[in-house]
C-alpha cells in the first residue's frame, strides 16, 4: 500500500470539483487511457479580468492522480490565468502534503493539463501536438518540452527522477538515450543560469543498465575515476575485453558488435547481424554502455555507427 498523506486520501475519498463543467471556456486534456492515466481539466474564465471562476476535472487514474486533479482545481479557482500559470507541479504536491516519489507524475499531469486548458481558452495551439519538440517517449506520449519543464520545475538530475515525474523511459526503454540528452542539456543550461550546482548536473553515459523504473531506489555510487590514468591503448584494451565478454550473448541472438573508434568518452561501435534493425538495439547499446562505464570507471557514451562510417 502506498503511503499517501492524509490530505491525498481526503482528496481521493472526497474529491472536490469532480465531474463535467457545462459551458466551460477552456478545456485541457492530457494523458491517454493506454498510459494508465488521463486528465480532462475544464475551466470557466471571466473575460473581464481573466479570473478562473470555476474548475472541474475528470480523471482516469490512481488515487494520487484523482487527488492531484482535485487539488489543482482548488488551487486555481479564484486566480487569474497569469497567476494560475505560475503554479508548478510542486505546488500541487505541496498542497497535498507531498506525494510518493513514484507518483510525482500525477502532479505533472495536473500542471500540463492546466497549461493546455489556458492555451485552449486563449485560442492558442497547445504545444502538446509536439511542434516544440520531438515525441521522445512514444509509450507514454512525452515530448522534449514536457521533460524540460519537469526537469526545470523540480530540479531533476537523474533518469530515475525523470521517469517518476514524466513516466518517460518507463516502458520499452528505447528512448533512454534521447531522454538522457534532454536531461543533460537542460541541466547544463540550468548550471549556466546559476540554477543548479554543477556537481549535481546529469552527465549522459555511465548510466545503470536497467530501465529507470526498475532501478534501485538508493542513490547509485558514482563510478570511481580510475580511468583518468588510463592511456588510450589501455582504454581500447579494456573496451575490447568487455565486448568479448558480451559477444556470446549477442551471438546467441544472431548479432554482433565491434569497436570502431574511441574519442575521449565516446565509444563508436558497429552493430551487425540481427542487432541491426532490432527493436531492442537501443537497450543493448545501453547495456554495453553500462558495462563499459563500470570497467573504465568513467561515464562513457556508446554510439552505434552504421556500416561504411
Amino acid at each position: 500500500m502506498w503511503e499517501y498523506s492524509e490530505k491525498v486520501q481526503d482528496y481521493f475519498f472526497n474529491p472536490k470539483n469532480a465531474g463535467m463543467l457545462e459551458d466551460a471556456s477552456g478545456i485541457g486534456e492530457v494523458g491517454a487511457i493506454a498510459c494508465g492515466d488521463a486528465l480532462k481539466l475544464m475551466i470557466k474564465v471571466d473575460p473581464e479580468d481573466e479570473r478562473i471562476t470555476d474548475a472541474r476535472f475528470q480523471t482516469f487514474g490512481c488515487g494520487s492522480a484523482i487527488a492531484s486533479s482535485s487539488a489543482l482545481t482548488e488551487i486555481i479557482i479564484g486566480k487569474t490565468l497569469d497567476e494560475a500559470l505560475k503554479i508548478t507541479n510542486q505546488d500541487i504536491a505541496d498542497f497535498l502534503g507531498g506525494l510518493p516519489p513514484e507518483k510525482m507524475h500525477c502532479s505533472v499531469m495536473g500542471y500540463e493539463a492546466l497549461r493546455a486548458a489556458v492555451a485552449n481558452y486563449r485560442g492558442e495551439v497547445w504545444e502538446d501536438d509536439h511542434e516544440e519538440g520531438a515525441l521522445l517517449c512514444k509509450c507514454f506520449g512525452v515530448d522534449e518540452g514536457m521533460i524540460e519543464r519537469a526537469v526545470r520545475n523540480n530540479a531533476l538530475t537523474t533518469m530515475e527522477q525523470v521517469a517518476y515525474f514524466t513516466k518517460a523511459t518507463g516502458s520499452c526503454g528505447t528512448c533512454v538515450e534521447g531522454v538522457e540528452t534532454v536531461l543533460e542539456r537542460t541541466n547544463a543550461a540550468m548550471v549556466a543560469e546559476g540554477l543548479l550546482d554543477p556537481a549535481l548536473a546529469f552527465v549522459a553515459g555511465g548510466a545503470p543498465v536497467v530501465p529507470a523504473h526498475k532501478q534501485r531506489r538508493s542513490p547509485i555510487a558514482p563510478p570511481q575515476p580510475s580511468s583518468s590514468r588510463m592511456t588510450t591503448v589501455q582504454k581500447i584494451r579494456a573496451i575490447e575485453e568487455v565486448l568479448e565478454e558480451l559477444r556470446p550473448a549477442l551471438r546467441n541472438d544472431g548479432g554482433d558488435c565491434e569497436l570502431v573508434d574511441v574519442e575521449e568518452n565516446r565509444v563508436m561501435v558497429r552493430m551487425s547481424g540481427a542487432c541491426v534493425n532490432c527493436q531492442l538495439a537501443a537497450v543493448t547499446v545501453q547495456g554495453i554502455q553500462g558495462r563499459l562505464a563500470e570497467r573504465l570507471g568513467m561515464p562513457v557514451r556508446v554510439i552505434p555507427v552504421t556500416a561504411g562510417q
Partner: protein
Amino acid sequence: MKAVYLDNNATTRVDPAAVAAMLPFFTEQFGNASSMHAFGSDVGAALRKGRQQLQALLGAAFDHEIVFTGGGTESDNTAILSALETQGGRNEIVTTAVEHPAVLALCAWLEKSRGTRVHYIGVDARGRLDIEAYRHALSPRTAIASVMWANNETGTLFPVAMLAELAHEAGALFHTDAVQAVGKIPMNLKDTAIDMLSLSGHKFHGPKGIGALYVRRGVRLRPLIRGGHQERGRRAGTENAPGIIGLGVAAELAKEHIEEENTRVRALRDRLEQGLLQRIGNAFVAGDTENRLPNTSNVAFEFIEGEAILLLLNKAGIAASSGSACTSGSLEPSHVLRAMNVPYTAAHGAIRFSFSRENTDADVDHVLEVMPAIIARLREMSPFWDGKNAVQSGFAPTYA
C-alpha cells in the same frame, strides 16, 4: 465492519491447527534433528510426518522426493539452476511469458550473466499457452522446460502433464512452479512425467518461510545451498522444524478440503464473478474460464484504474489485488495482462479476487453490495465515460 479477505493468492491465514502443531517446536521440542539425543530424535520423527503429509497431498511415490526449502522462490531457483548443471551440454531454457518473477527474473539474469538462451512461450487472449510454439522451442539443446501449473493473476491452468511428456520427448527435464496450484486442485505426481515441482506453504494456510521442491526419484539435483547433510545433501541448513511441521498440517488439511475447494469455494467464486458481470457493464473476466483454479477470479473493469478501485474496496473492508501499474510502482500493467493483450481500455482496471475455504457467502454478498457503487463512482470521474456509455466509440470487447 467485518474484514473480507479475498487476496488468498497473495497469502493465506495460517490455519489455527497448523499454528498449534508448530508451537511446541519453538519451546519444549526445540532440538536439532541431527542431534544424538532425545531432544533431536523427537523432532526427527515430527519432520518425517510432515514430509509424509506433503507427499500425500502431492500424490508423490516416495516421501524422500520432497526437499524442504525456504519457499517457492528458492525451489524455482534450485530446480532451474540444477538442471543447467546436470543436463550436460544443454544450456537452453523453455518457459512462458507469464511466469512468476521467481522464474522470469532468474531467466533474465541467466541470459545476461551466462548467455543462457531462454525461450519465452506466449499465450493467447484467454491466457492459454501456445502449445505449438512450446513444441517448436524444445530441442536437443533444452536443459529444462519450466512452466507454471496455475497463473497467479488469472488462475489459468496450463496442461503441465502433457507439457512434461513433450519435454521428455526432447530429452529435457520438466519443472513446474505449482505455488498457486498446490492445495487447490487434486494432484497425483506419480502418474505424471513431471520431474520437479515448486510449492510454498503460505499459499495454502501454512506458515511463511517454508516451501518444498519435489524431485522425482532418479532426477539428479545439484543443491543451491551447500553446507550440511540435511535433506539428503540436497538443501543444507538446519531444518526449519516448526515450519515443516506447520506445512505438513496445512497439507493434510488442504487434502481434506480439496473437494470443498472445488465445490463450495468454486461456487462462491462463480457467484461473485457472475454477480459482478450482471451488475456492472463494460466488465469481463480475464483468463481461461474453462481451465482455471477454483478460487481465482480476475475481472477487468473498463475506463477506470485498479489502484483507485482497491483503495475504495479497502475502505469498505475488502482486500483484493490488482495487476494495474500504479499498485506495483511499475508504470505498466502486469506482464501477464500484457502477454494476453488485454484491451488497453481495461488492462489498468483488472482486479483479482482470490478465495480460500475461509470465505463465506456473506463475503460475496458484501462485495456485490459495494462494488457497483465503487465502479460507478470512479466511472463518473473518468473522462472516458459519459454516464452510460464509453465515450470512445469503436470498442468491441474480445472477451466473453
